[in-house]
């Protein structure tokens, strides 16, 4: 395919070429000393199209054929160093606004009805900001300014999980994500140190309620089980002691960390064989000293990037690298990406892409521009709702992404992007359900009224406010569930007899009535010099798939394309001249390719 007429997506590739052109042998200056570190020296990686594409499938979000041509002109060391090198600017950062406590104070004197309305507005604004930020992140992934950073941020996003649905404070959740993204390629130790003081995390795992004499073990347990050591490498007694050490670690109303001395248990604790008047920061240092810690982090990272768990000798080797490098990620990743084992048969082309991988990869490969909001919603429908992990362990990943339903839905999502699906026609005669939000509010407020009496504590107004926010959240989350479940829209936005299930309708509206896929497959394929059916198909397969198409798949699709062409009475070799008919055929063929099992791997 020609690079002409393409958008600035290719800027990343141009940056790569420029940086690599700086000189053979020497690492770019910005890389500092780590690139020369002896631990990164390994045997040679066979540098061919398949392996180069594999590297970008895993370290980024895929490549286009023309990017691949550029990449193959350079050594794997240079390409990996460029992926790892800090970018001068990753664009203008998102500015997160913080709702102000005074807004809540203003409400105090108001009648109940108005307060309710006011709270609902604040809550809606908060959710909007969260969505805006999530869209902003998806845009960054698609823009490819710093794809490795976004790839690894996605790892931390599922490792140090926090659900915006539980925290309900977009400012804090955004701050956390900006912290993870800024340090994604830095040091794991710094991430762990930061996360025990992270307001969103302290809310998510209830540490605001962890007080001297009244421990709440939620953060303590997950800190060891999921964030540092893994199950089996600590005792129940350690959980209790770590919970004591974390007492008083809280977040204040300005969205900042606050050490609440009065609620901190200053006594002596015993944690993993160490003894002292530990606080949360001390505990983190104890955790970082454990052999299990580096093994846990290395194992999770390798599994994320390779798709399979490393066998134990290899795991120990990589854990050793992490420990010896003070938990710095760059030397670790450099070694991994230049390790011939990373390119072994068991690994290449055998990983099921996550929904985000699939969607970002598809968007780049097609060079289309659906709104980020669409990609976000679609990823959620396919099982990867950013900022709302299914639980504190994050997303399970791998083959669990694919169910009978999600596999069909991936194809639908691609069809909406390509404009080959007519939802209205597909769902004629499917009745809607009606009355949802009102019903939920009625039911919840009944339940809450009966619960309120026993729960009204000294907090008075605040408690009341929290409860109302709670209720909104619960309705929101049920409505979100509905969206996942494909049920109807709330009455306010219900367009009468629309029969399309809600999940798909939400996607359609996120794509927007103004959205048309701005692509011209006919022109692109033609520009590569392809003419006959086999060449046309190969061009589409190489640009749309992250793996090489198996022979039987190619044969099946070739039969299909030949039949389609013959069906409109056009001879082989002349299809690309029949522009309008050809474009429809190619788009439907692209939809078909992206719906196949082959398109889910990479």
């Amino acid at each position, binding site marked *: 395919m020609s690079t002409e007429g393409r958008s600035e997506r290719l800027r990343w590739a141009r940056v790569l070429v420029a940086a690599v052109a700086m000189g053979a042998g020497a690492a770019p200056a910005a890389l500092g000393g780590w690139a020369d570190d002896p631990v990164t020296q390994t045997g040679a990686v066979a540098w061919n199209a398949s392996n180069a594409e594999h590297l970008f499938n895993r370290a980024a979000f895929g490549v286009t054929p023309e990017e691949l041509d550029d990449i193959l002109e350079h050594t794997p060391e240079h390409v990996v160093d460029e992926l790892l090198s800090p970018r001068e600017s990753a664009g203008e950062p998102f500015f997160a606004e913080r709702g102000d406590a005074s807004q809540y104070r203003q409400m105090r004197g108001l009648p109940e009805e108005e307060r309710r309305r006011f709270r609902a507005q604040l809550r809606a604004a908060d959710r909007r900001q969260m969505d805006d930020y999530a869209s902003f992140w998806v845009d960054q992934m698609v823009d490819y300014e710093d794809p490795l950073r976004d790839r690894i941020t996605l790892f931390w996003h599922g490792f140090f999980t926090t659900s915006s649905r539980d925290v309900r404070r977009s400012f804090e959740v955004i701050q956390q994500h900006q912290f993870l993204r800024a340090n994604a390629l830095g040091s794991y130790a710094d991430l762990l140190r930061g996360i025990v003081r992270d307001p969103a995390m302290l809310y998510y795992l209830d540490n605001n309620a962890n007080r001297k004499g009244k421990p709440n073990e939620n953060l303590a347990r997950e800190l060891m089980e999921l964030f540092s050591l893994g199950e089996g490498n600590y005792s129940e007694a350690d959980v209790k002691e770590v919970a004591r050490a974390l007492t008083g670690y809280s977040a204040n109303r300005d969205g900042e960390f606050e050490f609440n001395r009065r609620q901190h248990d200053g006594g002596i604790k015993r944690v993993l064989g160490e003894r002292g008047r530990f606080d949360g920061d001390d505990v983190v240092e104890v955790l970082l000293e454990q052999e299990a810690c580096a093994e846990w982090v290395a194992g999770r990272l390798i599994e994320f990037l390779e798709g399979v768990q490393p066998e134990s000798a290899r795991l120990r080797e990589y854990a050793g690298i992490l420990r010896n490098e003070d938990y710095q990620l760059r030397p670790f990743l450099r070694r991994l990406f230049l390790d011939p084992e990373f390119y072994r048969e068991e690994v290449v082309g055998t990983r099921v892409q996550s929904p985000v991988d699939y969607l970002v990869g598809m968007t780049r490969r097609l060079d289309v521009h659906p709104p980020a909001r669409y990609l976000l919603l679609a990823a959620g429908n396919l099982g990867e709702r950013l900022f709302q992990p299914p639980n504190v362990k994050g997303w399970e990943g791998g083959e669990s992404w694919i169910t009978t339903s999600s596999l069909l839905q991936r194809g639908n999502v691609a069809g909406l992007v390509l404009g080959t699906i007519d939802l209205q026609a597909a769902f004629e005669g499917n009745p809607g359900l009606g009355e949802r939000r009102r019903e939920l509010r009625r039911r919840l407020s009944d339940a809450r009224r009966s619960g309120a009496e026993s729960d009204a504590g000294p907090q008075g107004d605040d408690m009341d406010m929290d409860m109302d926010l709670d209720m909104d959240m619960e309705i929101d989350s049920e409505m979100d569930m509905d969206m996942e479940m494909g049920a109807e829209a709330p009455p306010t936005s219900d367009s009468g007899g629309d029969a399309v299930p809600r999940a798909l309708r939400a996607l359609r509206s996120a794509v927007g009535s103004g959205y048309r896929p701005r692509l011209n497959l006919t022109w692109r394929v033609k520009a590569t010099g392809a003419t006959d059916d086999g060449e046309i198909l190969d061009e589409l397969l190489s640009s749309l798939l992250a793996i090489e198409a198996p022979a039987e798949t190619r044969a*099946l699709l070739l039969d299909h394309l030949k039949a389609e062409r013959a069906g409109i009475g056009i001879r082989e070799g002349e299809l690309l001249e029949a522009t309008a008919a050809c474009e429809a055929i190619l788009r439907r063929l692209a939809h078909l390719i992206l719906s196949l099992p082959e398109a889910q791997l990479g």
Partner: protein
Amino acid sequence: MNENTNEMTNLDRRRFVAGGLSLLGGASLLPGHAFARLRPASSGASDEGADKTLVLIQLSGGNDGLSTVVPYGDDAYGANRRRTLVPTAELHKLDGYRGLHPNLAKLARIHDEGGLAIVEGIGYPGPVRSHFKSLDVWHAASLKGRAAREGWVGKVCRTAWSEGAPPELVVHVGGKVPYSLHSIEHPAVAFEIPESYRWLGEGTEAETFRRGRDAGEKTSVLDRLRGVLRDAQESSTRVRAAARAYRTDIEYPQTPFGRGLRVIAGLIEAREGTRVFSIDLGGFDTHNNQKASHDGLMTTVDDALNAFLRDLRGREAGDRTLVMMFSEFGRRVAENGSGGTDHGKAAPMFLAGTPVQGGLYGKHPSMTDLDGGDLAYTTDFRSVYATAIEDWFGIPHREILGETFERIPCLRT
């Protein structure tokens, strides 16, 4: 294997046609026993139980058993619970010691009518308080968790129902398939709502798409995905048709859980050959201000499960349906500092439906002789599984569980 595949494909084509006809006003689906006829009689299980169904309901997050079946008659209950205390006066008392949560009014009636069995003090040796590890133990029915290599339902499928089974042998209504259903040979059919369980391509694409699933042995990821695609295409038409055709006078609550159970009822009625259904209800991880959220969850369970049980009761579909409801663990006896409860150990399990001999089973754990602040289990959950496997499905439970467990005499004979 290949022969079977072809057979399924042909059958599916016929069904596809039948589904299309019913859309145009034809009366019904193919006769429900199509698969039962295809299934060879040799498969270990006796054919007598060939259309029995188990519905697994998972309360995710660790349901507080003490707020569900409340031991109000025990002083230690009131002494340990304040902000999460369920007031005695509101309980549906089962006897002088325990009562069901006030919001379980409908299930209490079903209990009184003999359709609900409560097995108390459920747990397992060496309990883990991690959600994930504990769920793995439950799902694998093995203390080794995932080291056991497959889910317990997957193992039942492989052992007893492996040949001639339709893709819908195991159906999960929801997004994420639980590990209990994991199986290389019989991955579960999963969907959230039937209406959107379909691929929207048309015409010749649809035909090519149907051929894009021809798989060899399921040794590679790609072949497994092709198997999933085949299952998806074959079941999608039937599932949607069954949901569309289902008629009932019972009004299910408009919650995802209620709607999911309604879909299950429709599929049971349609006899598509499903042996195990699975559905989750989340939100039980109540570390904080438990009372309000747990009260609401009890209502959700009560409304939906009541509708489901009443819908099936008195009908043939009800005679062949057993419901099993569980959670990965109970919660601490003592409250935490924030009006909630932390992860604990033993808790009750529930069996419901026409086949059930209602009442109390197992033994309520001591409220004072605790295991590290938790209720110590008195009955292994695998005893309940053994009951379902052997007394319900007619499969020797040792073949599945690897050990012998005492079964619970809670099914009518």
